[in-house]
C-alpha cells in the first residue's frame, strides 16, 4: 500500500472508530474465552470433587459433564456473536472507509 494512501485512511475518523470498536470487541471476546477455559482447567486441577457433584439428586449427570458440554456450545456461540457483529457493524464501516479512500 502506498504510504500516502495509508496516511489518508489512518487519519479517517471512520477508520479510527472501526479499529477502536473491533479491537475492543475482539479482545473482550478473547479474554472471555481464555478466562472461562482456564477457570475450567484450574477447577479440574484444584477442585475435582466439586465437579463430581451431581446436578440433581436423582441424576447421574455431574456438574463437570454439564459444564463441559456447555463449554463446547459456548465456544461456538461466541464465534457466532462475533461474526454477527462483524457482518453488520464492522463491515459497514469498512465499506465506508474503502469508498472514501
Amino acid at each position, binding site marked *: 500500500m502506498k504510504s500516502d494512501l495509508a496516511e489518508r485512511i489512518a487519519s479517517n475518523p471512520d477508520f479510527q472508530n472501526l479499529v477502536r470498536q473491533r479491537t475492543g470487541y*475482539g479482545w473482550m471476546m478473547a479474554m472471555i474465552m481464555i478466562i472461562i477455559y482456564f477457570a475450567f482447567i484450574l477447577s479440574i486441577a484444584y477442585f475435582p470433587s466439586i465437579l463430581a457433584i451431581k446436578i440433581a439428586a436423582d441424576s*447421574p449427570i455431574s456438574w463437570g459433564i454439564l459444564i*463441559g458440554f456447555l463449554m463446547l456450545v459456548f465456544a461456538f456461540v461466541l*464465534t457466532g456473536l*462475533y*461474526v454477527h457483529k462483524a457482518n453488520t457493524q464492522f463491515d459497514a464501516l469498512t465499506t465506508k472507509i474503502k469508498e472514501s479512500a
Partner: protein
Amino acid sequence: MKNPLLILAGLAALITGVLFSTGAFAADAAPKSINMPAVTLFVVFVALTLFITYWAAQRTRTAKDFYAAGGNITGFQNGLALAGDYMSAASFLGIAGLVYANGFDGLIYSIGFLVGWPIMLFLLAEKLRNLGKYTFADVASYRLSQIPIRTVAAVSSLIVVLMYLIAQMVGAGKLIEVLFGLPYSYAVVIVGVLMVVYVTLGGMLATTWVQIIKAVLLLSGATFMALAVMYSFGFDFNAMFNKAIEISPKHEAIMAPGSLIHDPISAISLGMALMFGVAGLPHILMRFFTVTNAKEARRSVFVATGFIGYFYILTFIIGFGAIIMVSTNPAYLSAAHKLIGGDNMAAIHLSHAIGGNIFLGFISAVAFATILAVVSGLTLAGASAVSHDLYASAFRHGRVDEKTEMRASRYATIALGILAIILGIAFEKQNIAFMVGLAFAVAASANFPILFLAIYWKNLTTRGAVAGGLGGLLTAVTLVVLSKTVWVDVFHFATPIVPYKDPAIFSMPVAFILAWFFSMTDKSPRAAEERARFHAQYVRSETGIGAEGAAKH
C-alpha cells in the same frame, strides 16, 4: 504432468490390485481376515478422490491455484475443510477411546482442542487473510527481513508437519493392519503414494475437496453412531449414563475428573498449548488464503467451530456407547479382557455392534479416508514451506518464475512423501504418543508468537522475531525431550529430568520475552525501517485494502 489421467488410472489399478491380493499376506500379518465391505468402500473412496484430483489438475495452472485453490473457496466450504483437517483419525478414534477408558477426562481434551478456534477468529483470522498470500510466513515477514523470518518459520513449520505426519502414518499403518489385514508397511506406502498424487497433481483444490468429502462422510458416520446409541436408550441421557456407570469398572468415577490432570502447572501448560497451538498450525493457517476475503475467512472459522464442537459431542456419546455396547461383549475382547486392538478401537468395535460388517466396513473406510485427507493437507503445508518460503523467497530472493516455484513445490511434495513413508516405517515400534503434543507445543511457542507480534506489535524487528521464534522452538523441543514422554518412554531412562509433560507454560513466555528484548535493544537502521513499515501494514490488516484478491476465472 502431461497425462495425469493415465497416471491416476495406473495408480488406481495398482492399489486395487494390492488391496484385493493381500489374502496371501494376511495370514502372517494379522489374525483378522480381510473385511470386504471396508476394502470395497475404501476403493470407491480412492477412485472418487482420484477423479477429483484429475478434475483439480486441469484447474491448477498458476502458483495461486496450487497453493490457495485460486482463492475461490467459499467460507462454508473452507469451514468444512478446516474441520476436516482438525478431525483427524487421532481425534476421532483417540478421543472416543479416551472417553471409553476414562469417561469425563476425554471431554477435557475435546474442550482444549476446540477453544483455540474462537481465539483464532477474534485475534488473527481476518488480519491473516488481509496480509497473506500463500503461507503464514508471508504475514510474519510482511514488513520484516524475508530470508531470516521465512527460514525460521519454515523450519518450525516443517517440525510441526513432520511430527503430525509421523503420528498419522503410524496410526494409519496400525489401523489398517487390524482392519484390512494388510501388512503395516503396505498401508504406509499406500497412504504415502496417494497423498503425493493428490498434492502434486491437484494442489490445494484437490486437497480441499478430498478434505470436504471426508469431513461429510465422517460427520455422517459419527452422527449415525451417536443416534443409534441414543435410540437404544429412547434418547434418554440419564438412562444412558446410568447404564454406563453400572457397567464400567470405574463406575461413578467416569462422570468426574480422574487422573488426566493432577497438578495446576501441567493443567495450564496443556491448556496453553492447545489454545494457542491451533493458531500456529501451518496446514490450518494456509487455508485462510483459499477464501476470497476477510469476511469469508471469518465465516469459515464460525463453520469450522460449529462442526468440530458438534463432532466432539458425538465422540463423547460414542465413547459412552462403547462402554455399554462393546466392553461387555466377549467378541470384542482379548483373553486378558482388554479391547482387541487397544482402547483406540472402541469406536470401530462400536460400529460393528451397531451395524454389523457393513457399517464396520463404512467406518473403517472413513477412518482410512480421514488419515489420507489429513496427511495430504499436512504435506501441502510442508511442501509450501519448502518451495515458497525456503526456495523461492530465502534461497532465490524472490527472483524465480511461477513455473519453477511450482516445480520446486512438486519435488518437495515427493521428497516429503518419501520421508513420511521412511519415518512411518521406522517409527512403527516406537512410542509416538508425544508427537501431536509436541506439534501443538511448537506451534504455540514458535509460530504463534512470531505471527501474533508481527501483526500487533509495532516494535517487533527481524532480530527480535528470530530470537523469539528460535527460543520458543528450542525450549519446547528440549523440554519435551527431557520429560517423561521421551526421556523415559522412548529412551528408557529411569526418571525424567523435567517433571512436566507439556512445555508451553515455559516455552511460550520464553518466545515472547526474547522477541521483546531483542526487538527493544535493536537500534539498527534496518530495525527503524521495519518499525516505520508497520503503519501501512496496520492499515491493510484492518481494512483489507491492497489485500490479495480472488483469481479472475
